[in-house]
């Protein structure tokens, strides 16, 4: 008996113990004398917030985030700076450069000669937005896009910047944007994970993408991002082992659920019920996932729209097509990462290939959502973690140069989901180094995305270890000017 008591004690973790204890104290009216909520573990009912229902009527129901990992150079894609070509080779004025912190890669560089884009730009659509010749397909859909040229961030290296954009903090361990949305909005389709992740890689210099970027942080683990990989098993460990059929799997799950239920009654740990739910979902995913992943029924129109690579698993085009299929099936947040945008050197060659990899499929995704009547309720975001410098990294030659990391300005675009179409928001200065008008901080961007999904970024909070956490941390304001 003594042993059982000891084991029972060990099964209580500290936080559960404290939260139970606080209930006891509360009933003894002592709780009111303590700091309110001192021991309350989760913020589930934080200020009347009911997770999984939006705060107000949303414009968008789902998000597809085409993350261009490595930081695409805005000077070669969207931010047209003819002046940079005129100033080619001249040192960037110190007044422009200011006290900007540099990366270890250019900190010791003696000269910072400005470099103009090797590629030409033209104006397109009714919005007359400038788009580079590297993005011919994107150029055709500018009237559906809201191009934000004045994004800025705080970090100067990939991992912190990426983590900042995804979780609102540079340090990690916080829930990713998709997890927050899953927490705030709940499932639309209970047979697929709410937050899925798709990876692809271009030919350019790549940067790591780690699973911490789609972590649920301190939120319940059902909000974690699920990676769909390109192989025969898109979701790992989902397939039944050989020799096991559907009925046997069902029977096994039923029995397991009974055992888990016993265990729940004994310990009362909510993670046990979460686990049971996850088993059930996995069971339903066994039929839902192959159905979504099946590209064989896509029409020729679709293949021509996304480009022939969309049927080659693991390419960006295939991931865009899959993203559309997942989103159409009610997945709240589909996160794509396309690696290879880190052009410190050899930029003209690499960026052309990178752009070619993503251009057709990115534009196709927007067109495809539109022709299905889904663009209104799906927010598509395209962009990297920061921008690139107006001066060259390394040696500037006649036809080759590189650009270093630049947090002070970068360009992203958004489409659908109640964002104003055919708009260019924010401008940088003539050297493309500082923001001239309408700066948009990463937290402002996040606040705006949440707003489109019917969530107030100041109210979407979770209390953890005594602090109320938000995706936007302690700042951020909704950019009303870009909301339709």
């Amino acid at each position, binding site marked *: 008996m003594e042993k059982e008591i000891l084991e029972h004690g060990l099964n209580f973790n500290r936080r559960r113990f404290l939260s139970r204890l606080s209930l006891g104290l509360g009933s003894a009216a002592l709780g009111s004398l303590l700091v309110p909520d001192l021991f309350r573990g989760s913020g589930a009912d934080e200020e009347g917030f*009911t997770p*999984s*229902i*939006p*705060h*107000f*009527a*949303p414009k968008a129901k789902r998000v597809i985030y085409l993350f261009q990992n490595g930081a695409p150079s805005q000077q070669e894609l969207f931010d047209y700076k003819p002046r940079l070509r005129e100033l080619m080779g001249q040192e960037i004025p110190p007044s422009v450069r200011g006290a900007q912190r540099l990366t270890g890669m250019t900190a010791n560089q003696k000269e910072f000669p400005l470099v103009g884009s090797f590629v030409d730009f033209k104006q397109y659509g009714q919005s007359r937005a400038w788009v580079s010749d590297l993005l011919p397909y994107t150029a055709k859909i500018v009237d559906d896009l809201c191009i934000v040229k004045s994004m800025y961030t705080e970090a100067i290296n990939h991992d912190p910047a990426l983590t900042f954009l995804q979780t609102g903090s540079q340090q990690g361990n916080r829930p990713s944007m998709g997890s927050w949305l899953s927490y705030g909005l*709940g*499932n*639309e*389709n*209970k*047979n697929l994970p709410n937050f899925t992740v798709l990876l692809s890689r271009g030919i350019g210099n*790549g940067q790591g993408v780690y699973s911490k970027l789609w972590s649920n942080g301190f939120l319940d683990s059902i909000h974690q991002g699920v990676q769909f990989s390109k192989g025969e098993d898109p979701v790992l460990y989902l397939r039944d082992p050989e020799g096991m059929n559907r009925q046997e799997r069902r029977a096994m799950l039923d029995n397991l659920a009974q055992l888990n239920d016993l265990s729940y009654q004994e310990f009362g740990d909510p993670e046990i019920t979460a686990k049971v739910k996850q088993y059930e979902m996995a069971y*339903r995913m066994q*039929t*839902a996932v192959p*159905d979504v992943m099946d*590209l*064989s029924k896509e*029409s*020729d*129109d679709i*293949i*021509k*729209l996304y*480009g*022939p*690579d969309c*049927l*080659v698993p693991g390419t960006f085009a295939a991931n865009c097509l899959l993203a559309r299929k997942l989103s*159409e*099936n*009610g997945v709240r947040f589909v996160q794509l990462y396309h690696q290879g945008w880190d052009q410190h050197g050899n930029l003209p060659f690499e960026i052309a290939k990178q752009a070619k990899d993503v251009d057709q499929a990115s534009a*196709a995704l927007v*067109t*495809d959502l*539109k*022709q*299905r*009547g*889904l663009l*209104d309720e799906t927010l598509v975001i395209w962009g990297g973690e920061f921008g690139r410098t107006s001066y060259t990294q390394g040696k500037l030659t006649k036809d080759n140069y590189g650009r270093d990391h630049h947090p002070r300005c970068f360009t992203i675009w958004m489409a659908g989901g109640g964002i104003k179409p055919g708009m260019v928001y924010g401008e940088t200065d003539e050297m493309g180094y500082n923001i001239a008008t309408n700066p948009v901080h990463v937290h402002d961007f996040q606040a705006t995305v949440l707003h489109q999904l*019917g969530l107030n970024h100041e109210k979407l909070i979770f209390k953890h270890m005594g602090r109320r956490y938000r995706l936007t941390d302690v700042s951020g304001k909704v950019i*009303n*000017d870009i909301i339709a």
Partner: protein
Amino acid sequence: MRNKVIGLAERGLFASAVFILFLLLFESRLEIPVWLQPVGRMHPLLLHFPLVILLLAVGMEAFRFNKVYATNDFYQVFSSNLLLAGALSAAITVIMGLLLATEPGYTGSVVQWHKWAGVSVFLVACFIYWFRTKPWYNRAIAQTGAACMGLILIGAGHYGSVITHGADFITEPIIKTQRAAPVDFQQAMVFNDVIKPIFEQKCTTCHNPDKLKGELNLTNAEAIRQGGKSGKLFVPGKPDVSLLLRRIHLSTTEKKHMPPSGRAQLTTAEIRLLSLWVKGSAAFDKRVADLPVTDSLRFMAAAMFKPAEAAKPEFTFDAADDETVKKLNTDYRTVAALARESPALAVNLYNKAAYSPNQLRELSPVKTQVVSLNLTKLPVKDADLSLVGQFENIQKLDLNFTDITGKGLKELVPLKHLESLTLSGTKVAYTDVRDQFRAFKNLKTVTLWETPLTDTEISQLKKANPKITFIAGFDGDKSAPIKLNPPQVRNSSVIFSQQLPLKIIHPIRGVELRYTTDGSVPDSIHSAILTSQKMVDQSTSVNVKAYKPGWFSSDVATFTFYKSAYKPDSVRLLLPLNPVHQAAGAHTFFDRKLGTFNANSPAWANNWAGFRKNDMVLVSLFDKPVSLSSVALRVMIEEETSIFPPGTIEIWGGENEGNLRKLTTLTPDMPVKKSPHELKALVTSFSPQSVSCLKIIARPLKEIPAWHPNKGKQALLLVDEVFIN
């Protein structure tokens, strides 16, 4: 001693009464020296003492004649002394207040009211103190005096706080929410509705007729035109030189920065509005709507007058019962409120196999609340649409890729609120839908992509229904042809022992693959068509190209298949591998896995065995003698990273290790400067020999050629596979 102190205090009280009267009389002629001004400014600090002390004292005074207290010596003495202390502190406070009032900026009726209330407090306190011992001073007078004192104190306090905090300080939060009633854009005035509110929020607490800091009043147009002590506020049309904006733009550390640090600061948008207003010559009587459309001020103001939320459709129906909604939620049907406290519900159905019309029938308890319904990709029939017809408030209906034909659309006509209908991927026929859309009153968008409808039919629909946007979507047949992507190989290994069926496929349906094996580029006429029956029984390089009508042909894809007839029964390396290129040791060469160029891929580290200092000396033993005529090494050649083919390859064979003879020697060709990297099988051939033991010696290049940056150094040799035939 005690009496001495009290006496002193009483004389001080009298003296201060005289002094106060003097100040009141000669107020307008006073000139307060600078060193005395701080004393005046301590008025707001000290005033709390008389306030509290006097309230307490007159409270005790009111009950002085009670039987119990009248005989209590301590009560009597204490209340008397408290009153004296209160009166004295009131005197000091009043003096300070009068000094402060001489400073510029304290004019206006509120200051006057405050002044006289304060003085009255002092006078009433003196009156009570001096006459409380007189025989005619009775209970009624004491209580009236106490009540008077209380009222005057409240009055003085109130007016004082109006001066420091402004009139609406306490009620402001309430008023603010009430103020929300938006001004109509057409009526809005530039000054009254855009500029004045800024002043009211951030400036008029100090710059009002009562406080007049810097002799500036910002509460009305006339006073604003007039300016303050430092002059006119602005030069119309020139925000850069205007005092108003100069003060605002000063650094917050500057004393003259406005609003003063510690007070609510102007936002960038507010500063911009003020600046634009001055630039536009600071007019007071212009309507916002009269400004040119391109005017920045108008642009910014337009956002202010836009109703806070674009009029959301107000749902007039009641919310459904929570329990009912909960029950309707199943694994394949989600029923969820649009937002918190919204009665409207969104319904999504999933899973073809789980669908039946019953799923729609079951929704009848919430039929009024459903505003959006998603049936995409479900086998919904025309007949089922009559069930959809029950959702009287539906706004968005998704029927993409369902089995409907358009005949059932009339069932949807009663849905008065339907705005968006998606029909992409359905079999709707023109004859069925032609006359249907007219009946829909509120319909705004219809998607018709991938339907049998032709362009002409869609444009006729557009003509007949100008209010509806018909989305036709992307038609691949009309777009410029694009290039097919190259074919792919699906064989699990390209290394085989006898023969191998080629599994070369193309992901796109209906693609024709044509191939050659002689190294030439396949063409669409003469080259053979690749079928799944195609086998290879020799090491072969296959060139394949993909063709499909309406597409450009793909690039040539080259796949090399290697024959390796014999696998040794045991292998070992006599000399160790390069420490950083271990791969799977001696087994690497017969594991049928090939390496790649990409050094970041696992296939690189796992499959390339490397040699630099030591020669590759591989001994392979066969249990039964085999007849060999060729041995090949697959190597990587990449001069850029100093990876070269071996200088020489020697093949030795015999019955056992002690009895070997050299079968052949090969000196591979070396790459030249800038030659592209390649993966290559270096083949040695010899007359057929029966061997049980085979020894392969490959020597890494001793000296890198002179043209190379690493000239003279030893090159790296990378081998991933050995083929024995």
